[in-house]
């Protein structure tokens, strides 16, 4: 999935800590075997709470979130659901590790920034920010540009919309063959 960068759009905010993937995408909807159209199930047990802060109407491509966002279950449905209602970048102090990888596989840029920087961005609920993945920078009106780190591999894949499976097959076919030959020679129990 390719996303045009730089990405410019309004910010949504969900600053609660430890929002797990069960909250993002409750388990009862895991019976669905498609990955498209899942946005309608996102935050199902939260979205009708009076104090739920995030508009779920595809109007907020950039999400500013609390620490350990996407912790817990590996369900990629959580990422597909967020993508389905338009989220293309998530800025948080930290992420669940599997969720982080799932984001990079699906055209969502996960951006780790220090807690105080995230808190400052959260004050801009509804305002427009730009995520420049080429330059690894978040910019906005009246905001000193904020640099962020992302691995070169993830950055390239997100910028180019590369499919990871195709990439490995194309680049490393011979090395995988060679590894398997070495392994066969060394370990009979495999």
């Amino acid at each position, binding site marked *: 999935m390719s996303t045009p960068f730089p990405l410019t759009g309004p910010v949504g905010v969900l600053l*609660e800590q*430890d929002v*797990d993937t*069960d*909250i993002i995408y*409750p*388990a*009862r909807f*895991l*019976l*669905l*075997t*498609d*990955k498209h159209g899942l946005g309608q199930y996102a935050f199902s*047990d939260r979205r009708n709470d009076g104090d739920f802060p995030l508009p779920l109407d595809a109007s907020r491509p950039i999400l500013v979130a609390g*620490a*350990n966002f996407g*912790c*817990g*279950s*590996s*369900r*990629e449905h959580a*990422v597909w659901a967020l993508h389905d209602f338009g989220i293309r970048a998530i800025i948080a102090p*930290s992420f*669940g*590790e*599997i969720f982080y*990888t*799932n984001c990079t*596989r*699906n055209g969502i840029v996960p951006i780790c920034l220090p807690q105080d920087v995230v808190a400052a961005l959260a004050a801009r609920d509804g305002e427009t920010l730009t995520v420049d993945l080429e330059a690894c920078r978040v910019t906005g009106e009246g905001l000193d540009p904020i640099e962020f780190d992302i*691995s*070169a*591999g993830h950055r*390239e894949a997100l910028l180019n919309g590369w*499919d*990871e*499976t*195709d990439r*490995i*097959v194309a*680049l*490393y076919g011979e*090395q*995988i063959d060679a*590894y*398997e030959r070495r*392994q066969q020679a060394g*370990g*009979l*129990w*495999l």
Partner: protein
Amino acid sequence: MGRTLYEKLWDAHVVAEDGDNTLIYIDRHLLHEVSTPQSFEILRQGGHGVRRPERQLAVADHSVPTQDRAQGIADPQARDQIALLERNCAEFGIEYLALDSADQGIVHVVGPEQGFTLPGLTIVCGDSHTSTHGAFGALAFGIGASECGTVMATQCLSQSKAKTMRVTFEGRLAAGVSAKDMALAFINAVGAAGAVGHAVEFAGEAVSALSMEGRMTLCNMVIEAGSRTGLIAPDATTFAYVEGRERAPQGADFGKACAYWRTLASDADAVFDREIVIDASAIAPFITYGTRPDQSVPVDGRIPASGEADDKALRYMGVSAEQPMDALAIDHVFIGSCTNGRIEDLRAAASIAHGRKVAEGVRALVVPGSGRVKQQAEAEGLDRIFVDAGFEWREPGCSLCVAMNNDRLPAGARCASTSNRNFEGRQGAGARTHLMSPAMAAAAAITGRITDIRSMAR
């Protein structure tokens, strides 16, 4: 400088350096019905085959019913999802353990009991509790559905190397305290995100003394501290468990394998990025009070004071700051899951249930982790003990750990559970989960209240 167990496993599986990541070879892939439909789509769309079908093993667990299986699966979505796994496996040449087979069960129970899980391997599954297999000294971690597709097509994943953390449990556990309490104590000590980015190796006297079942319980829950990978060095206990299992190396190969597996332990001079020491002898039975697995206290403790406790979690759980946990009334009990659905767990629960009755108004389920666990339990008469006491004896599956099948709790229900997550809605929208050990859950079933197992021991 010496290397850690994690570093040895990593080094043995490097296929190529891949920019700022490393391409790692994946020896084994476990599949279940929930995280793989979209993975097989990746194969079809990309025109990929499964590179090494014999390195994959599939079984349905998350959405399977745990009763009345002879009548088929009532929920059409679950029925379709399980049928799809079976069809996908047939199309791509992957072995599928059928729902009516005695081998069916939770992936993380089935893999080890079949000898599919072995020391020294890399093992992945589209499930965050894949860390369970690290109990054997395998590099095992949960992945997403897209990664499952990549593994089937290439037998590889591009990964960044984790930092290392060693958690040493010094001394011995007291009576009535189990591996589950060690896991909850560890998570409480480091926090729900305390081990993010780290591969966690468990060591020390109390870890060495654990059975493989206990070691699996401990490694199973590292994801609840944010780590994808738990590890324990393979030793004589490991080898004794693996020997003779049908997918494990046999005869002379087993001896050669053991010789290699013995080299995997962290070197004496290996340096970990982080070291934590926990006094095992001081651990009491642990219980969670909130909606994160690190929100826990010893059973004889109290919920933290207002301001320290997470008020939102307390509101959801219907408990108050500074409330004692002991004697809190429960109405449901769940004994099972990839954390605590193995034979030793059922024995511990049965030893409490034996000759007693489930309290009035309490519904208590015992869900074995696999068909083999169920058979073993029945051979030992554990099923009779549970049924006579008023527990429901079910067919194997994930059941109330994930509440994807028809085992779901109503809003407001309060459950003493041996599972791994007390997240909001985990056992049903609005339901409340208290995590604890199998013996503690059985005790709660009998008294209808959170009960210190040490007061009931016989």
